[in-house]
């Protein structure tokens, strides 16, 4: 099925899971789209099967908590940040429920985590105003950049470029080969409303960068020149929550969760509003991601919702 305006508008909630007793902090699809891993403020990591749509396993992380969580490239293990005790990032095997490696280095809470789509490397950003580059195979920090403020990070789909959002004011692009020298591009943004940036993502075709904020609007930038192509607003966020926004895998649409439990979608090319979907979330939709390989997406508050299109393929 091809994703069109009509198909996107037809999405309805197909599955609801209440595995968590507190807010879901983060969710991530595996690279093959077969599973979702999620971390929650209730200190648990829940794994879901996205083929049949059911919870698969719950791992408890009472000691370190479960902050940000991302699948590693092969889809069997995850990297996760702690929100208690220390600021070490951990590489966890989902199959064995054992930690493979610890990555100590940050001195304050890790607020950004992204995994390379092509290599065994990942990047973490922390409130200690640094971005650290790591290799899954070794505990030593492979690279460090001091920044002026709170960082966000994202890899481009080719794994060549690292985008860093800094102090909610600028996006800096780094070439990983010359990492440590400085960015090859800096896009400074002027926002009318002072607010914090809460997310940074590349589109699947690498041509756009999505900046999500806690001020009730999103920006779509040209990833080559930094120009703001679209600013999408009109969704509720009066309490300045971190609401996740995402591109669809064909890079055509932009979606965001809203404070009132709805999901808003726009055409990323034309800028037109395409849909407002109501899944009757019981709280703000803090997490939202589209499956990279299948026609389904997931949204979360303290419950996890799986969505499916309701238009059928006729013969």
């Amino acid at each position, binding site marked *: 099925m091809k994703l069109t305006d009509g198909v996107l508008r037809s999405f309805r*909630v197909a599955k609801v899971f209440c595995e968590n007793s507190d807010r879901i902090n983060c969710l991530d699809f595996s690279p093959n789209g077969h599973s979702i891993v999620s971390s929650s403020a209730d200190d648990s990591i829940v794994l879901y099967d996205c083929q049949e749509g059911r919870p698969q396993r719950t791992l408890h992380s009472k000691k370190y908590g479960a902050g940000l969580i991302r699948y590693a490239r092969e889809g069997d293990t995850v990297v996760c940040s702690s929100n208690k005790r220390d600021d070490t990032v951990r590489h966890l095997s989902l199959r064995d429920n054992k930690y493979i490696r610890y990555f100590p280095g940050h001195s304050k809470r890790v607020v950004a985590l992204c995994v390379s789509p092509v290599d065994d490397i990942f990047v973490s950003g922390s409130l200690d105003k640094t971005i650290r580059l790591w290799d899954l195979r070794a505990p030593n920090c492979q690279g460090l950049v001091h920044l002026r403020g709170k960082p966000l990070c994202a890899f481009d789909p080719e794994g060549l470029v690292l985008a860093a959002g800094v102090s909610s004011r600028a996006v800096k692009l780094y070439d990983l080969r*010359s990492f440590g020298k400085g960015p090859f591009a800096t896009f400074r943004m002027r926002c009318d409303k002072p607010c914090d940036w809460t997310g940074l993502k590349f589109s699947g075709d*690498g041509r756009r960068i999505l900046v999500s904020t806690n001020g009730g609007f999103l920006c779509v930038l040209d990833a*080559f020149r930094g120009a703001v192509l679209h600013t999408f607003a009109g969704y509720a966020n009066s309490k300045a929550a971190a609401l996740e926004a995402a591109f669809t895998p064909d890079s055509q649409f932009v979606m965001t969760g809203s404070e009132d439990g709805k999901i808003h979608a726009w055409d990323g090319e034309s800028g037109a509003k395409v849909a407002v979907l109501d899944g009757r979330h019981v709280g703000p939709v803090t997490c939202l991601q589209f499956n990279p390989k299948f*026609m*389904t997406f997931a949204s979360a508050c303290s419950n996890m919702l799986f969505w499916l299109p309701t238009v059928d393929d*006729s013969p």
Partner: protein
Amino acid sequence: MEHSHPPNHYHHQQPLPQPSPSGERRNYQWRSYKLMIDPALKKGHHKLYRYDGQHFSLAMSSNRLVEIVEDPWVVGIWTKNKELKLSVPKFKIDQFYMGPVPPKQVTFDTLNDNIRENFLRDMCKKYGEVEEVEILYNLRTKKHLSIAKVVFATIWGAKKVLQHLHSTSVVGNIIHVELDTKGETRMRLYELLVTGHYTPQTLPVGEVDAVSPIVNETLRLSDALKHLKDTAYSSCRLDTPNSYRQGTPLTPRLGTFCSQDSSYSSC
């Protein structure tokens, strides 16, 4: 680079401090580094750091300064993925399922008890792709109950089988085919049969509102069981042992989902 470094630091031939894993000392001699050689990854070598793209922790002939920093993207490497086709996953209809269930499931009643799964599958696949076929047997006596579940891949497959097979004679029996989206009718019939109130021949098919106090009690009991499963927090993790135990009990704390207009296109 964001800050300019006081240049005199670099003229002194001091070895620059090695970053240590447990919290670097905040010093102003470098802003960034890259670990060029990690002995954990490249055996037999020493650690080699490159600071700010300009200075190395060890003098090695292979050390190269970063001269130009440029965009590594090559024009034209992007694939057009607007034509991306994604397939819809086939979620299981279970206790987590929400919303209108696509009417892809049918129940067959009054089947001849010689009919087996293969026969039924072959008979149905003419009308559309069949996802699942199950003939129901009494678990205790292993007796063929003359009822079956067939799930199609598409809505129109289910519709067609209804049009073509309902009230037709199959192996000598006039069979009854009906849409049974969540399998509830089939579950009711199963209960009636295993509790001994009816036999496959006397089953009140098509009269699902049969007013019999025993029948109603059985139904009420099974509904109560459904609600019990509901409120237990761990209910979501229970396995569904039998195929007939389907249905979507709505958990009260979620609130009611708005009625969804199911815009199912059919041919």
